[in-house]
């Protein structure tokens, strides 16, 4: 195999370009700031990125099935509020966690029922629940004092560590690995790809689309609810506008990682790379002492640059090998699940 072929093959791997862009960014930050690669900074970076990572991982399922979930930002905030309220009333840790996760479950269930069973547009339903959830947190903060839980068990959710690895990072890693495994190695995951690529074909192949979509929105809600639990433990206080804007960051993360908004394409780890890309960018800029007002501009430009770069690499890869048809790996991957569903 010639170098040219190797290069083409590597560049054609979906997500390779973003991973490369991510590594380049890390190198740039590491060279320009001596503090970037210190243990303390990496610790902060990982702990602070778990929320975006979790939301993006759940969002990946929704986007692959061909939908969108704008409500996750509000679910994150509301679930954090509910968790903190329960914990500050002296409830056991497990109950507080369950309340937070259940908050996400309820919102996800509402989203899923309306989208899957009534066929209402996903963007509008989740925009409405975004508004309702955000408003509910606002109401909650005016009714209940939500500051500080004095319980080591609760704060250990955020500050504890196992073998030097922070607890939230470990838990997030477990969730991400589980989600990736389910997506690529179970019939459920294959059905999600099948429905995202061609829902009527999936339907003819026997996929229960309603149930599948319901499950996916519930999953996204539950994951966002869990992220809210971790956020409550991390901040140990809740502002009325907590979680605002997280939905767009999560979607951007997934798309930067190469999850296609038209559905049927993507993987959890790619979305996680995208989430790390965004959180590392903002943290690195902060470390370099860049004025925070530049952040939204730099983030916006780098989102465009990252995707354009990965598009360019794909194009470059296909132009290197004109003989072979453009390798559409996800489509080929997806052809299998359709068969699998068919049997």
């Amino acid at each position: 195999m010639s170098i040219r072929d190797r290069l083409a093959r590597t560049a054609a791997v979906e997500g390779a370009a973003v991973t490369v862009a991510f590594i380049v960014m890390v190198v740039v930050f590491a060279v320009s700031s001596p503090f970037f690669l210190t243990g303390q900074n990496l610790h902060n970076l990982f702990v602070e990125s778990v929320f975006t990572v979790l939301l993006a991982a759940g969002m990946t399922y929704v986007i692959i099935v061909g939908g969108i979930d704008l409500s996750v930002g509000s679910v994150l905030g509301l679930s954090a509020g509910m968790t903190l309220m329960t914990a500050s009333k002296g409830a056991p840790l497990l109950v507080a966690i369950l309340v937070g996760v259940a908050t996400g479950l309820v919102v996800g269930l509402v989203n899923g029922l309306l989208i899957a069973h009534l066929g209402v547009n996903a963007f509008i339903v989740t925009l409405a629940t975004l508004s309702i959830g955000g408003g509910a947190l606002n109401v909650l903060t005016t009714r209940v004092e939500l500051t500080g839980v004095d319980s080591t068990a609760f704060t250990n959710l955020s500050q504890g560590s196992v073998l030097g690895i922070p607890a939230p990072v470990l838990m997030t890693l477990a969730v991400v690995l589980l989600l990736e495994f389910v997506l690529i190695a179970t019939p459920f995951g294959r059905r999600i790809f099948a429905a995202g690529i061609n829902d009527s074909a999936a339907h003819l192949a026997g996929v229960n689309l309603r149930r599948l979509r319901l499950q996916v929105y519930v999953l996204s809600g539950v994951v966002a609810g869990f992220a809210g639990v971790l956020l409550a433990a991390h901040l140990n206080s809740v502002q009325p506008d907590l979680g605002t804007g997280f939905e767009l960051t999560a979607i951007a993360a997934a798309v930067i990682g190469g999850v296609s908004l038209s559905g049927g394409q993507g993987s959890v780890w790619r979305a996680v790379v995208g989430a790390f890309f965004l959180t590392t960018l903002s943290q690195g800029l902060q470390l370099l002492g860049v004025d925070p007002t530049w952040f939204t501009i730099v983030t916006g430009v780098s989102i465009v640059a990252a995707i354009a770069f990965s598009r360019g690499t794909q194009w470059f890869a296909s132009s290197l090998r004109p003989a072979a048809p453009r390798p559409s790996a996800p489509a080929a991957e997806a052809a299998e699940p359709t068969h699998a569903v068919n049997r």
Partner: protein
Amino acid sequence: MSGTNRSTPVASQLSGVLSSTSSGAIAILILVCVLATSQSSSFLSLDNGFNIASQMVFVLLLALGTTIVLITGGIDLSVGSVMGLTAGVVAYLVSQGLPLGVAMLAAVAVGALLGLVNGLIITKLGLPDFIATLAMLGVARGLLFLWTEGTPFIGYMSKPYYVIGGLERPFGYLTIPIMVAMVATFAVFAVLKYTAFGRHCYGVGSSSDAARRSGVRVPRIRVLAYVVSGLLAGVAGVLLAGQTTAVAPDLGSGYELQAIAAAIIGGAALSGGRGHALGAVMGTLILAATANAMNISGVSAVWQPVVVGFVLLLSVILDRLTEKQRGRSAHLPSAPAVATAH
């Protein structure tokens, strides 16, 4: 159904508009009016009607642009930020001593230019619409923050600008913003219904492949749709700067979602090929009337997002239910859109 009633052209046209403006929206509007009137008799007064009209102007201008973009199958998340930035352009240029007219033209041009950038990034670089305009949302917002250095632009108001912003009313109830919004609605209505560009928008949104095969320059139509959307955001920004008398760094945040919600309540679809100007008016009216009704009946501000969310849900659910009902009698639920496209 537009097909069943052919007695008079006007009646059939009206029923066509009504059936495509989503009956859910109309039901919700009636419900809001009844509830608000039962709370306070002043809701249905002429004064309050114009109150609502002047509150809805800005979202309406954005919703009109959003409707065009949605028809072509795109989405524009940047309109709120672009509106804020163009308001900043007027405020800054006027305070630098430029004539108001020049500053206003410059602001509208900036809006159109940012729309052009959106369109080119989407068509030339092939980025998803959602992501390109999300990035523009961040960039435009960041630019306004940098430019204002975090403190609002003030001191740019002049006598004519009070009139343009609608704070002074030389013509009775009709303010300049309301008139501009009416003209814009009429223009978008006419463009969508009677021009080749309008028909091409529906064509591109229904099937870009079919449109391309029949000779429509698809990328050009899509870019133009974003330019129009940016331009309308620029117009809204000019008016908004006049009404707020200060341009805060976060002016216009969140407006993009309201504009999209309004367009969708009004019958536009994210899948493209559907939507019209009167629908955008209807959708905006529902949002504005709901907000106004809550203020009048003394609903606390913290509850308002919750209520708005429920209104949005209710209107799409009702719409969906009636569409299902209609789908049983006829198998073409999107018949009005198809009819407009050809």
